[in-house]
C-alpha cells in the first residue's frame, strides 16, 4: 500500500484528535446502551392480575415538638370530664392540638362486648369528655372507629359508646368489608397487613383513647396496644409475637395525642376482665404526645408493676419510637 503516485496522495490516517473522539463516542454508546439495558432489566416474571398492591403508608398526625409546653400531663380527680379537662389544660388545652375545622378521629378501645363498669373498654364518660373538648376547640367532625374482636355492633352498644355517639353526634364507623386497605410498614413483624382505613381518609387529627388494663399475654393493654384495633384479617397470629407487634404500632401510628383513662383500672384478669373486683379506681388521667411515655407511667403507677416486665415498651425505646423514661420528659401533674 505504498504510495507510488504523486497525483493521488494517500491521505494520512486519522489524526489523533479524530481518533480519540470517535473512539470516545463509540465507547460512550456501548457503555450507555449497556447501562440502560441493565437498569431497565427485569430478570423475574410476575403473575398478571395477582400483583400485590402497594400498601398505603400512614402519614404522621403528630403535632410539632414543643420545647416549652409539656408533652405529658397527669391529672388526678374523681370524675372523668373534670380530670380530662385538667390534664388537657396542663398540656396547653385541646386548642394546642385541634384547630377550627379539623376532622378528628378518636380511636377508643372497644375490643370486647363488656359493660363499662368492668373497665375492659373505653369508658363512655371518657369519650364524651374528649369529644366535647374537640368540639369546643373547633373540630368540624369527630369520628369514632375501632375493629373489635367480638361483634362490632354488640361491642359498641354494650360498652355504651353507641349511646355517646348518638348523643354527641359523632360519626361512628363500623368496620365493613371494604373499609380495609393493605398497609405497608417496615416493622419487625408488621410488614404487609390489611388495615382499617376508612376512618383515616378524611381525618387530619388522631386521638387514641385507651383504658388501662392488665393483659394476660403482654402484661398490659394501654395506649400503644390500643392501635391493634386498626388491624384486620386473622390478626390473632400476632399473639405469637405480641411484644414485637405492639412496638410496631408505635412505628405505624403517630397520633396527635393519646389519653390513658386510669379512672378505673382493670388490675387483673385482663384483657376481658369480668368481675368488678378486678377493677380498681385509680382516678387518674394521663395525656401526652408520646404513647410510650404515657404507657410507662400507666404501668408503673396505675397498674403498680415493675416497668422492667413490659417488653414492648423497651423494644419501642430501643427502636427510637418513644421515651420510656417519662420522668425525663417535660411533664406536669395536678390534682383536682
Amino acid at each position: 500500500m505504498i504510495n507510488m503516485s504523486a497525483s493521488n496522495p494517500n491521505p494520512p490516517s486519522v489524526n489523533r484528535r479524530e481518533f480519540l473522539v470517535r473512539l470516545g463516542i463509540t465507547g460512550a454508546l456501548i457503555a450507555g446502551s449497556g447501562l440502560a439495558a441493565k437498569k431497565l432489566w427485569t430478570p423475574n416474571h410476575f403473575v398478571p392480575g395477582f400483583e400485590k398492591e402497594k400498601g398505603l403508608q400512614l402519614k404522621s398526625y403528630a403535632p410539632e415538638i414543643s420545647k416549652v409546653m409539656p408533652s405529658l400531663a397527669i391529672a388526678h380527680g374523681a370524675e372523668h370530664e373534670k380530670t380530662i379537662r385538667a390534664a388537657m389544660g396542663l398540656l396547653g388545652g385541646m386548642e394546642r392540638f385541634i384547630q377550627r375545622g379539623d376532622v378528628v378521629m378518636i380511636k377508643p378501645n372497644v375490643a370486647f362486648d363488656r359493660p363499662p363498669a368492668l373497665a375492659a373498654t373505653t369508658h363512655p364518660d371518657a369519650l364524651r369528655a374528649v369529644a366535647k373538648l374537640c368540639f369546643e376547640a373547633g373540630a368540624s367532625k369527630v369520628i369514632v372507629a375501632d375493629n373489635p374482636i367480638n361483634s362490632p355492633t354488640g361491642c359498641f352498644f354494650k360498652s355504651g359508646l353507641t349511646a355517646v355517639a348518638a348523643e354527641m353526634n359523632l360519626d361512628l364507623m363500623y368496620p365493613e368489608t371494604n373499609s380495609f386497605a393493605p398497609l405497608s410498614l417496615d416493622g419487625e413483624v408488621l410488614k404487609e397487613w390489611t388495615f382499617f382505613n376508612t376512618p383515616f381518609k378524611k381525618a387530619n387529627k388522631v386521638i387514641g383513647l385507651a383504658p388501662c388494663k392488665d393483659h394476660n399475654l403482654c402484661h398490659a393493654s394501654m395506649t400503644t396496644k390500643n392501635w391493634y384495633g386498626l388491624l384486620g384479617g386473622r390478626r390473632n397470629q400476632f399473639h405469637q409475637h405480641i411484644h414485637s407487634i405492639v412496638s410496631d404500632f408505635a412505628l405505624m401510628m403517630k397520633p396527635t395525642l393519646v389519653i390513658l383513662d386510669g379512672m378505673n383500672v382493670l388490675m387483673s384478669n385482663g384483657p376481658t376482665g369480668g368481675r368488678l373486683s378486678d377493677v380498681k379506681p385509680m382516678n387518674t388521667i394521663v395525656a401526652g404526645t408520646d404513647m410510650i411515655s404515657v404507657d410507662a407511667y400507666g404501668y408503673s403507677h396505675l397498674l403498680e408493676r415493675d416497668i422492667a416486665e413490659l417488653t414492648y415498651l423497651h423494644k419501642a425505646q430501643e427502636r427510637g419510637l418513644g421515651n420510656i423514661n417519662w420522668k425525663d420528659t417535660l411533664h406536669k401533674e395536678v390534682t383536682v
Partner: protein
Amino acid sequence: MAAPLSAKPAAGGRKNFRRTSVPMVERAASLILLLLIVVIGLAVYRKGKRFDPNLYAVRNDALKSTALAVEGKGGTAPAASESKAVSTGAPKATAEKPAGPEETPAEGGAEASTAAPKPATKGEPLEIALTGTKPMGDTEFYNSDNLYEKIDGRAPAYQSFNVQALRCRSFAVNAAAGSFVDVYEYRFDTPVNAFGMFALERDPKGKPLEIVADGYAADMGYFFRQGAVYVQIIASDTKPETLAKAKSIADIRAKDLPVDDKGLAGRRKLPAEGMVADSVSYVPENAQGLSALKDVFQAKYKFDGAEMPFFIMVATADEAVSAAKSFQDFCGKFGTAENLPDVNGAKIFRAQVFGKWKVVYQREGELGGAFDADDGDKARAFIEKYLRGEIK
C-alpha cells in the same frame, strides 16, 4: 484510469479474480470467528439439556388444581377481612384458612397445609325463660381452639384445665333501659377441672351462694360451678333491677344444670369451720412436690390465731397408706419426722421440713393434714381436733 501497477490478471480474466494475499490479522480473525461459531453451537446444545422436567411432565395432582383455592374462598380477587357480624352459629372452620393479600403467600401456603381447627359444633341455644328479660342476639358457641376469639388472653388458662366449649348469650333487662345480663357457661371435661378453673378466678371478696356448693356472688355478678360447667353471670351495671334479674338467672341455671361432683370428694371433706374464704384450690398432681400426692384439695384455715394451710387427698386405702409412707420418708430425709399417737383410727406423724411444720394423718382412703405451719403444736392441735370431728 491509470494502469494499476500491481495488477495481476489471473487466468480467465477479471471475472475469476481471486484474492490471495490475505493479511495475518484477517486470518487470525477468521480463525477466532470460526471457533466462536463452534462454541455457540455447543452452548445451544448444552442449554438444551438443562430444563425443568415439570414443564413437560404429566402431573396427576394438578387436576386437584382449584380444590384448595375453593376451600379458602374460591377466589382470585382480593377479599378484605370479613366484618364480624354477630355470629349466629359455629365459627366457620374454613374461616381459619388465609384469605387473600392480607397475608403473604408464604403464610398463606403454610396455613393451608396445616389442619384447620375443628368447627365448634352447634349445641343447644341457651334459652332462659324469665319474665322481664329478653334474649339479645343468638347464642354464641366456641370450642377450645377458638375460645380466644371471645376471651382473648384468658383462653390459655382455660385450655390448661381442658375446657371443652363455651356457650354464651346476653339478655336484656326490660325494666332498665340499656341494661343487660351476660351469661357465660364454660363446659369442661370433668367437674374437677371446672372446679379448678373456677377456683383460679375466685374473688376473695365474694359472698358464698346457697344455691350451689361452689359459688359466690360478686358486686356485679354470680360465679359458680355446677357439675362440669363453670358459669359466669355478669350484670352490665349495679342497678337494682339488673342485679335482681342476674340473681334470678343464676338461680335458674343452678337448678337446671345437673349436679355432678365426681372427683370432688376431697373437696367435700374440707371442713368449713375456720376456712379462709377463697382459699380452696385444687392441685391435680405433685402437691407439695410429692409425686404420690395427686388430686389434692387445699384450703387455708384460721386456727388459734394462726393461719393453717390444710390439704386432703381422697384415694383407695392402699394408695393412701403408701402415699403416707413415702411422704414420711420424704420428710425424714429433708428434715425431722416423728410418729404421733393415733387419734380415732388415724395414723399421724409430724415433721419439720425447712423450718415449716407438717402434721399428716392417714385413715383408710383419706390422706391429709396441715402443712407449711409456723407453729408445730398448733398444727398438731388442729389436726387432732379435726380428727375427733370437732372441726366441721
